[in-house]
């Protein structure tokens, strides 16, 4: 199995006001790549749906390439650590 890492799928300003609708759209998008809703739910870490749109999910490199090409995706960003200053 290819190793999956947390990635942020960043989609910019949200296109719908209903947060649940935004999350459903994220699940649908992820399902289209992972080929099942169950897998999509397991993979999803967060749905960003209030201030902007996007989600964090555990993805393999090939899944990252596929999802980066979907309409509405600005960029797929690897998760990164920060520290307090």
């Amino acid at each position, binding site marked *: 199995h290819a190793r999956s890492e947390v990635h942020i799928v960043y989609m*910019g300003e949200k296109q719908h006001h209903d947060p649940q609708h935004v999350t459903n759209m994220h699940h649908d998008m992820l399902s289209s790549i992972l080929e099942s809703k169950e897998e999509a739910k397991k993979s999803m870490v967060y749905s960003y749906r209030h201030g902007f749109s996007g989600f964090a999910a555990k993805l393999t490199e090939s899944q990252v390439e596929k999802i980066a090409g979907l309409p509405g995706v600005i960029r797929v960003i*690897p998760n990164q650590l*920060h520290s307090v200053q």
Partner: protein
Amino acid sequence: TTRSWDYLGLSPQSSSKSNLLHDANLGDGVIIGLLDTGIWPESVILNDEGLGPIPQRWKGSCQSGERFNATQDCNRKLIGAKYYIDGFLAENRQPFNTTQAPDFKSPRDSFGHGTHTSTIAAGSFVPNASYKGIALGLLRGGAPKARIAMYKVCWNVPRGQCSSADILKAFDDAIHDGVDVLSVSLGTDLPLFPQIDERDGIGPGSFHAVTKGITVVCAGGNEGPSSHTIDNTSPWILTVAASTVDRSFPTGIVLGNNFTILGQAMFRGKEVGFTGLVYPENPGLRPTLFGVCESLTLNNTPVAGNVVLCFTTMNNRAPVSAAVTSVKQAGGVGVIIAKHPGDVIGPCSNDFPCIEVDYELGSQILFYMRSTRSPIVKLSPSKTLAGRPVSTKVAHFSSRGPSSISPAILKPDIAAPGVSTLAASSPFDPFMDGGFALHSGTSMAAPHVSGIVALLKAIHPSWSPAAIKSALMTTAWKTDPFGEPVFAEGSPQKLANPFDYGAGIVNPNKAAKPGLVYDMGTDDYIMYLCAVGYNDSSITQLVGKSKTCPSPKPSILDVNVPSITIPSIRNSVTLTRTVTNVGPVNSVYKAQIDSPQGIHVAVRPDILAFNSSVKDLSFIVEVSTSHKVNTGYYFGSLTWTDETHYVTIPISVRTQIIQFYTDFN
């Protein structure tokens, strides 16, 4: 904060007519969100006495978890508390281990950092607070009546780590919840990533917050004093450098010849009466440096019962810790560390005396030792010295500009106190005493500015984040409160310039009435994104509206920030700025230019007349260089004044006859 707010002119007892603290009713009604390590809700400084009901517009909540009961632990001061760990856990791929470093799967703070930053910004009043008697005074936040919402995103692992997936979720929730200000004392390692696909999550998260009217205040980072180390460089962020206040902790070192030297320490143990003073000298001609603090060699030195002098060229805390460990193990009773200015002082464990002196005074101590057969020394507990003659400096650790990824956007924006700040902490903080700890970092500087932003929001609720940022920058102090110049710590120490402290030291009372502001909105940020090369489709997606960048591409020099930074000029350049009158309606402002050395600056028009129908006016700045070689940066300023307001922005210009050229010769 027992000194910093007085230093900044925000004393609650001040009878001054222009006290922002009073005008803003202590920040009542404003909500400050913090992305940090959580909060210790029992801290006395989080009491909600005198606070009215929670603002009705607040949509956030408190989340229960390990040792955190939302109903009991939140109050009218702490109105929001959530935690975000899923991104961190998914990254670590192992169960959360709290055995080595305690933490709680809840908003409760173990590290102490989040409690410290949040109480700097908005803690309630606590009289007679101190750390073991030093820094005694009235502890409080900048906006003592503002409400706190803690978004715990960082966890108690070395350096307090936080994942960008968690940070972005906290931004997402904070925007939903209705915070007015976001205080983010976090940073990432260098080199930086581009701002919109920045892997830290702060760039995009803050963009969406700012375009919704939330001011985002970030720490500039602790990677100084090298240039190009500044972090959180997006133009929509308010990036904060750390400076000292007029307070120090002198600690007496009396030599056997009765000569007294004042070092710096946080030593609150008992006085060490006259006892032997030793320095591990090199035996013979061997090159080994026995007296170097970080690698003390004490085999040939009678340390037991004595005080040890050592020298180091390192400027972080590591040599202090190493020397204390070695000297303690060998039975010594104290250590004097001679070092270059560097990381700030801190207490040593179990009140062991560890006193820092500069190289010059360290050498004097060594000369005394070499001039007498049995050198002795007496060490006194540290005292608190506040006010004159203690000077203001930009901290050694504070990250410096220019921005490595957008050098035409000045960073940091501003400086604020961030050295030896007393605030609340967690009982798990090893440097906490009686609920309070003295900590240093740009982490401590940022919430000082966040507290001030809360006060400004209270009196100017309609001002945009850019207007607030402009007000803070154009009114900042270029000197300390006594009118003396501000130095920047480093080797060598030098006068501070805009890459050390941005527009200067934050001056809250003046920021309340700036006269003019350099305002910006989403369209201005789009222009910036076009200028730095983002494509139309990314920008359209980012802002949720169809946007096409103009052709030719706009100049980054025209982005309406309250500063002019020209990283590369060969002959001349022209740029524009627009100012908005937020003062008296019929105001007339005249330009005053302080040109950088060898640079000619002209402003057209040089008089701006506002009236009831003219609130915004644009002007052109023509800049030309007379330098014939590649230079470093020279600094100047442009001030618009109506003789009541002085609206000053820094100018930084570098001549590059050969461009894109590295010159190491």
